[in-house]
């Protein structure tokens, strides 16, 4: 509780230096990294969307390919933030001792965590935006809708970066992340409407899964891309923002306990 309430010690310019460090590493691998981020979801999209799509009637009023594409934007953004916050974050926190080195300089743990969270969100944004560009180029959504979804993609990146850092702060080793994927990320993907509409789920299950962050991510992004009315948009945005902030606060307390003990 004491660590949870520790007053923040944050400087935007110092957090930016942490972010910039990660950009500098990423820059030399930018092209393969972006292509990788794009190839994986596109394989899914084309394989499932075209293959399975041929067998299916319209889903939620659109072709299955379009339905899946609009879900994939949120799904890929989530994965981008999660991988960066978990595996790369753990490498810098624990394996390479990068955070320790940074904190020998006049940098606070808050500078490091905020810089890392923003970086994971940035990288996730690259993944989500790349897919938005591709699906707009294929004519699955108008360019104006793709543009309108960009800020939502950025927010989804922050949400899953914050949640991912909580997992990282608890991890004794890389193996731990398997649990995060099999117990949280993968079931959530099935229950949040990436691959099929959630109204296919039994009512009881739907009621029990209303809190899932990916459900709100898709709830925000899909209608925006389809141009359908979305009366709950601000609710989704609020929930995503709360997860982002909650993840940050909890991760910060846990990492404080882990590194500054």
């Amino acid at each position, binding site marked *: 509780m004491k660590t949870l309430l520790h007053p923040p010690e944050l400087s935007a310019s110092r957090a930016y230096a942490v972010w910039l460090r990660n950009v500098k590493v990423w820059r030399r691998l930018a092209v393969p990294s972006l292509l990788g981020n794009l190839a994986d979801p596109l394989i899914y999209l084309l394989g499932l969307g075209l293959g399975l799509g041929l067998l299916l009637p319209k889903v939620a009023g659109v072709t299955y390919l379009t339905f899946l594409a609009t879900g994939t934007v949120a799904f890929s953004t989530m994965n981008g933030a999660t991988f960066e916050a978990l595996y790369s974050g753990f490498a810098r926190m624990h394996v390479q001792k990068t955070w320790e080195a*940074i904190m020998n300089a006049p940098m*606070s743990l808050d500078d490091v965590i905020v810089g890392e969270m923003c970086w994971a969100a940035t990288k996730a944004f690259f993944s989500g935006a790349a897919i938005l560009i591709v699906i707009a180029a294929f004519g699955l959504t108008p360019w104006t809708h793709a543009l309108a979804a960009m800020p939502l993609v950025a927010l989804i990146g922050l949400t899953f970066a914050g949640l991912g850092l909580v997992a990282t702060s608890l991890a004794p080793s890389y193996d731990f992340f398997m649990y995060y994927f099999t117990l949280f990320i993968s079931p959530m993907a099935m229950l949040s409407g990436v691959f099929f509409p959630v109204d296919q789920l039994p009512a009881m299950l739907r009621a029990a899964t209303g809190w899932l962050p990916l459900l709100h991510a898709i709830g925000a992004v899909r209608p925006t891309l389809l141009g359908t009315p979305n009366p709950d948009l601000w609710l989704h945005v609020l929930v995503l923002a709360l997860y982002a902030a909650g993840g940050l606060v909890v991760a910060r307390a846990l990492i404080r306990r882990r590194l500054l003990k």
Partner: protein
Amino acid sequence: MDRPNDALERPVTRQRSPLVVEGLRKSYGDHEVVRGVSFSLVPGECFALLGPNGAGKTTTIRCILGQTMPSDGRIELVGESVPDHARQARQRVGVVPQTDSLDPDFTAAENLEVFARYFGIAPDQARERIPRLLAFAGLEAKADAKVPALSGGMKRRLTMARALINDPELLVMDEPTTGLDPQARHLIWDRLKGLITDGKTVLLTTHFMDEAERLAHRIAILDEGRIIAIGTPRDVIAEHIEPQVVEVFGDWAEHTGGAPAWATAHAAAFSRRFEISGETAFCYIDEPGALLDHLAGTGLRYLHRPANLEDVFLKLTGRELRDS
């Protein structure tokens, strides 16, 4: 005016101490790791904290840098109160940590460049400093080499260069030569001596007594969280131990028990104090002449040497292993 030159010889305003530690305590649960440590540094001196593993050296350093909350006590680092203003203090301190924390994704030069940014040093100012620091570390030829391609000694020198990027008022080094071969250690000592000669204040921790004797103006021996001896190496040796040591070992002509059996029978007669450790007897002595004459006829082997810090250290902290 009896002594007109006094004011010139001794400046009226004494320089502020780069580090003051008073009554520092740190507990983890019921276990008190640091139990009331006090010392302060004089500008320009090299001060070594010595202690066996688990003595509280690293915890003391972490408290000083504001990286863990002390349970009690007062710390003033380069004039700033820690932990409250630890960040401001670290702006003017350089740190060489015990474990390698260089950035493996970057080259030697990039490591310095990225680190400079954490201090808010302008890029052009950093670019001007980096070649000088690489030259100091003897790494000009390795500027563009990635960190994993560097040897252990090179990495440690690069870490030293990194700690100097902000031209710190105080350099803190936690076991700077642990794990290095003798050549690499001597090179580190050489650079460190250069810095000390140039007037840099240095706080180092080590468990190598020869390192402390060679580099430090003053030392403090830390054991179980307390300072048990403090002063210049020479004073600490003179205060705590007899000036001469004769180490006796090997086979004794009169008895199969070897040096330990000999020591039990005779050592007390010749030395002020003696200890048996394994197969060796350590005789601490003021004047070794009589003992050496006696040993000549026994078949035992011996080594006669002046007492050093290691003898003090072993006397004060004991010979049992500290594996923690």
